[in-house]
């Protein structure tokens, strides 16, 4: 060994960072919801707790007594909000520091390998090799010094972040501190809210929102989440944060009433709706992106658990609606209400995962939109009429406008309507000016009375698609025209969009269980008493499997959502044909069923 060459010592290790940023974020969300709850108390005491007709000395005494409570509640709300904000920042900082530590550890690993190599070379070193080894050792020393500096800097940032968090806590640790710091301080949300355009176009809303400071935006999300949670034109991240603040607050409040035994039937229904949204978000976030392995982003784009006489209104995304290159909006149909969001979120999650897996170089966000009062439960009879679809089409058009207005860079936007949801989509596309790139009808009983053919739809030429399983009894309801009108005598909701005269582009969407037994049947076994047998492979499944993984339908929809709409990009299907002399014929009924992988890249 040559002792003339100084080989660097091992560089310092960045200490293990035992932190879960997502847990800190959850804590921050709880603080924000608590802040919103307490802010509501302040508002109540300051406003609605005042009884207009009650005057005189007793009323004055009462109001004098409760005034400090309101004052204190407002201060407490602001204090919690400040801690929430710091906790949120702390979580972001910790995310960055965890990533930085991984990088530092990788560099340390390389340095150790380098040092080990230097030691090996230094054994049995020839005289002529000394200068080269000295030079290499010097370079290694420089790299180790830089790494040591970076580790020290990283450690300083860890401590500084922890210190800021602690300081924020310690500033509001007592009621006195809170009152001193925040008592009488105007809520930073109040003034910007007073300027909010009421009933304005999404573009005006967007301009108002963009004109706010970051602090004002965050203050509104905390203090008045209901004012922007469902407001078209506000970016999805802010709507999601606001709606989750409302959601957490509502669940806490109604669970308290449930615990006390004082919850009303209405409130119990709203609680069930809210929990459904909570579960859908949690389920989505428990999954990871199929390309990056990062947890899935999910935004609560609509939240109104008491809407539509308690059926509720909700929309949950998979992926980031603000930044994704492709955005799709899925509109479900019959039986849909807020408690159905779990199944609908699974559908759009399958669409998201397929789109990402098939085209990993593109980013996508898919939205399960239960934003209208679909026929459901006891009012399912409305499925035979277009009233709910007409009203829903208007709401859908507003949502599409909002998604467009809230972004600078236009997403490739696809709207997908299933079943009665396709009728709703049809009204959105015929009764309103919308700006979508693609539209897809699956399992459609018709797009409504205003859609005689594709020319009536506000969709670019050649970008209206139809997926229809030939065994789907609902898709069979659409009017085929001519003599027989179809198996259901044209009792559907307008023209069958899969028919050749309609002018849409049909893709293969056959169900793998096509041709199976019906939903229930009488056991024909000789000697066995008549028994009604239920089969899982049922006719209704022929109508509900369009989003199932590894199906023609999901594969084709993913191609459309990601903008791969050339004839060679899709599994094209022949149209339903209705000759004048006979009943309609669906050539797909005899076609082979394919099982394309929706988790495989499309080259």
């Amino acid at each position, binding site marked *: 060994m040559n002792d003339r060459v100084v080989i660097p010592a091992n560089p310092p290790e960045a200490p293990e960072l035992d932190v879960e940023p997502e847990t800190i974020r959850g804590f921050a969300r709880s603080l924000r919801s608590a802040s919103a709850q307490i802010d509501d108390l302040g508002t109540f005491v300051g406003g609605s707790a005042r009884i207009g007709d009650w005057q005189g000395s007793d009323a004055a005494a009462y109001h004098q007594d409760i005034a400090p409570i309101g004052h204190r509640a407002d201060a407490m709300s602001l204090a919690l909000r400040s801690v929430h904000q710091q906790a949120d920042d702390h979580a972001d900082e910790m995310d960055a520091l965890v990533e930085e530590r991984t990088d530092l550890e990788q560099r340390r690993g390389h340095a150790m390998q380098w040092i080990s190599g230097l030691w090996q070379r230094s054994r049995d070193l020839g005289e002529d090799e000394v200068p080269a080894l000295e030079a290499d050792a010097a370079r290694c020393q420089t790299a180790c010094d830089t790494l040591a500096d970076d580790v020290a800097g990283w450690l300083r940032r860890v401590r500084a972040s922890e210190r800021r968090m602690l300081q924020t806590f310690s500033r509001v640790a007592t009621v006195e501190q809170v009152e001193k710091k925040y008592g009488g301080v105007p809520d930073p949300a109040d003034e910007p809210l007073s300027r909010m355009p009421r009933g304005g176009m999404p573009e005006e809303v967007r301009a108002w929102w963009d004109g706010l400071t970051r602090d004002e935006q965050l203050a509104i999300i905390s203090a008045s989440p209901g004012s922007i949670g469902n407001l078209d034109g506000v970016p999805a991240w802010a709507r999601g944060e606001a709606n989750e603040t409302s959601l957490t607050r509502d669940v806490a409040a109604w669970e308290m009433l449930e615990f006390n035994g004082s919850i009303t039937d209405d409130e119990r229904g709203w609680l069930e709706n809210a929990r459904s949204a909570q*579960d859908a978000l949690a*389920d989505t976030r*428990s999954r*990871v992106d*199929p*390309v990056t*392995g990062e947890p899935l982003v999910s935004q609560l784009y609509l939240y109104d658990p008491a809407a539509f006489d308690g059926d509720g209104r909700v929309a949950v995304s998979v992926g980031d609606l603000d930044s994704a290159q492709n955005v799709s909006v899925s509109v479900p149909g*019959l*039986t849909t209400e807020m408690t*159905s969001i*779990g*199944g609908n979120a*699974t559908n759009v999650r*399958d669409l998201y*995962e397929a789109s990402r*897996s098939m085209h*990993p*170089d593109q980013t996508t966000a898919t939205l399960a939109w239960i934003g209208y009062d679909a*026929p*459901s*439960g*006891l009012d*399912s*009879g409305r*499925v*035979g*009429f277009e009233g709910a679809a007409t009203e829903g089409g208007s709401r859908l058009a507003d949502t599409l406008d909002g998604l467009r207005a809230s972004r600078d860079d236009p997403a490739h936007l696809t709207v997908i309507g299933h079943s009665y949801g396709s009728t709703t989509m049809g009204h959105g596309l015929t009764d309103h000016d919308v700006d979508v790139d693609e539209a897809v009808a699956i399992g459609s009983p018709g797009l409504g*009375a205003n859609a*005689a053919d594709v020319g009536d739809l506000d969709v670019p030429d050649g970008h209206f698609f139809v997926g229809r399983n030939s065994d789907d009894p609902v898709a069979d*309801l659409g*009017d085929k*025209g001519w003599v027989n*009108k179809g198996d259901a*005598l*044209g*009792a*559907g909701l307008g*023209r069958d969009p899969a028919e050749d*005269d309609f002018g849409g582009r049909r893709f293969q969407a056959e169900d*793998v*269980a096509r041709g199976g037994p019906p939903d229930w049947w009488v056991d024909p076994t000789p000697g066995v008493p008549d028994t009604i047998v*239920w089969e*899982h*492979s*049922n006719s*209704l*499944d022929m109508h*509900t*499997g369009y*989003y*199932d*993984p*590894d199906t023609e339908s999901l594969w084709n929809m993913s191609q459309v959502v990601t903008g791969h709409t050339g004839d060679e990009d899709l599994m094209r299907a022949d149209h339903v044909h209705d000759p004048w002399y006979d009943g309609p014929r669906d050539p797909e009924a005899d076609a082979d069923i394919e*099982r394309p*992988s929706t*988790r*495989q*890249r*499309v*080259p």
Partner: protein
Amino acid sequence: MMGRGSGPVVRLAVVLVGVILGVVAMTGCRPGSGEEEAQEQGLRDSRDQTVTELTAALDTVTAGLPAQLRFSQGNYDTCRSDLRGATGYAYSVNGRLDLAVAPTRADLTRLAGLLTQAGFEAEVVDEATVRGTKDDLTLRLSRLDQEPAYLFSGGTDECFGIGRDRAGDYSVDKDPIQLG
């Protein structure tokens, strides 16, 4: 334009069907049976078998390339449903393998060889994907274009019916797997 009206009787029938479907979906009424328990057990067995087989196959692949497992996750894929959501599932797994350098089309042949070594019948499907099959199990690996990685997915097509009251338990894989 072709006519599109419908008689009141037919319209009434559609309305009634809507009401029945809505109420059935709302109440979730569907008779239970021992068959459902057997189906659920079948799903669990399918999961165990998929995880065991794919773990072994990916061990061979990661050692041979070499590659590192970045992540894996299990999926209960909906294969049967009604208006309220899934009523049947097939189990599958997907994930990602990271490599030192981005694979080219030529590397797929080598990957197919490793799958063969792992007991699969393997073929290069197209310029991006290799598919291996072993009995009723399929494993696919697709290379990414500009990243040194393969995305993989594997499972069987077998669909197991799960009663509506139990279907919600399978909305996500609540006992996350980690292959390799």
